């Protein structure tokens, strides 16, 4: 599988490392060059960050067939916009967006995006710990 991940924070970097270790072809994008440090030295995938993170290069990434795009920056609205843009423009079959706001996550799921809402997940986990 070829996956493109936007946002190399705590989640994005771990996801990239795991998927790459499992033999998948991974591209990681982040505006901030420094963020790539979280990938560690042995990361086998491709990266696009800092000064190279520009329109032309982003488009070039998607010239190669991509199976899934995953938007996990720390900003809900950025994830939402990119997921929709990439899905529509480059006909990427799957786009997954992390959305902290439960209402936004629900709305965009109804609109056909695959959404992950950490707030809802934590809520359910805590409820189940408390057995309420």
């Amino acid at each position, binding site marked *: 599988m070829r996956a493109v991940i936007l946002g190399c924070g705590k989640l994005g970097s771990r996801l990239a490392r795991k998927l790459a270790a499992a033999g998948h072809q991974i591209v990681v994008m982040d505006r901030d060059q420094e963020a790539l440090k979280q990938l560690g030295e042995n990361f086998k995938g491709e990266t696009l960050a800092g000064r190279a993170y520009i329109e032309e290069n982003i488009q070039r990434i998607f010239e190669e067939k991509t199976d899934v795009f995953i938007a996990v920056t720390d900003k809900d*609205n950025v994830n939402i*916009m990119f997921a*929709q843009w990439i899905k*529509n423009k480059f006909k990427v079959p799957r786009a997954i967006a992390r959305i902290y706001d439960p209402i936004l996550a629900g709305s965009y799921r109804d*609109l056909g995006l695959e959404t992950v809402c950490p707030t809802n997940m934590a809520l359910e986990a805590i409820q189940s710990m408390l057995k309420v």
Partner: protein
Amino acid sequence: MYIIIVGGGKVGYQLTKLLLSQGHEVMLIEKDRNKFASLVDELGDSILYGDGSTMETLTEAGANRAEAIVAVTGHDEDNLVICQLSKMMFFGPRTIARVNNPRNEETFWGLGIDATVSATRLINALIQEQVKAHDMLIPLLTIRGGDVEIVQTSLSPSSPVVNKKIKDLVLPKGTLFISINRGEEVIIPRGDTDLREDDQVLVLVRKAHEAVLRQILMAPATDRKHA
């Protein structure tokens, strides 16, 4: 008309003042505490502190009864979510989004935004038009799908339509004169309205017909040479 504007920067602030002065009911939403504090004395009940891309704030602002929602923050992703969320959750207000990165204009049309305004494109058009001095047709607003535009022009003394009635012009199908600014006066034109020199006109036109409209309204440079 009740209009919600999101983003209290220069564009949002001036637009709020303009619409208020025209007698509209307006609510400006600003999420920066300091910016809000600097505007609240002047705008009073017409400004709300909050994040316009959340349901809570839009609901508090009364988005369910707004006829239009205008997102003019400096962040395209926020403008997109504000407009999409409004469309999904409320009773179909018209949505207008400011586009900061021209690339996003095309994206927005595909994603259910009714109209986009791009300052970059506008200024670029102005610069281009400066070069072609007799050819000032300025695109102000692009309606959903990018097929229809509102353009503005001011009629030069040598324009072939000066002193003609609108109904006597041979216009491309679907072209509509929206308004004429003549001095201090704003005229909602009818078929028998005369066009005069220095009139500022707003015209709704299909993009495909823009070049034809240009030829009709402008005095072609070649004609002048022959004259």
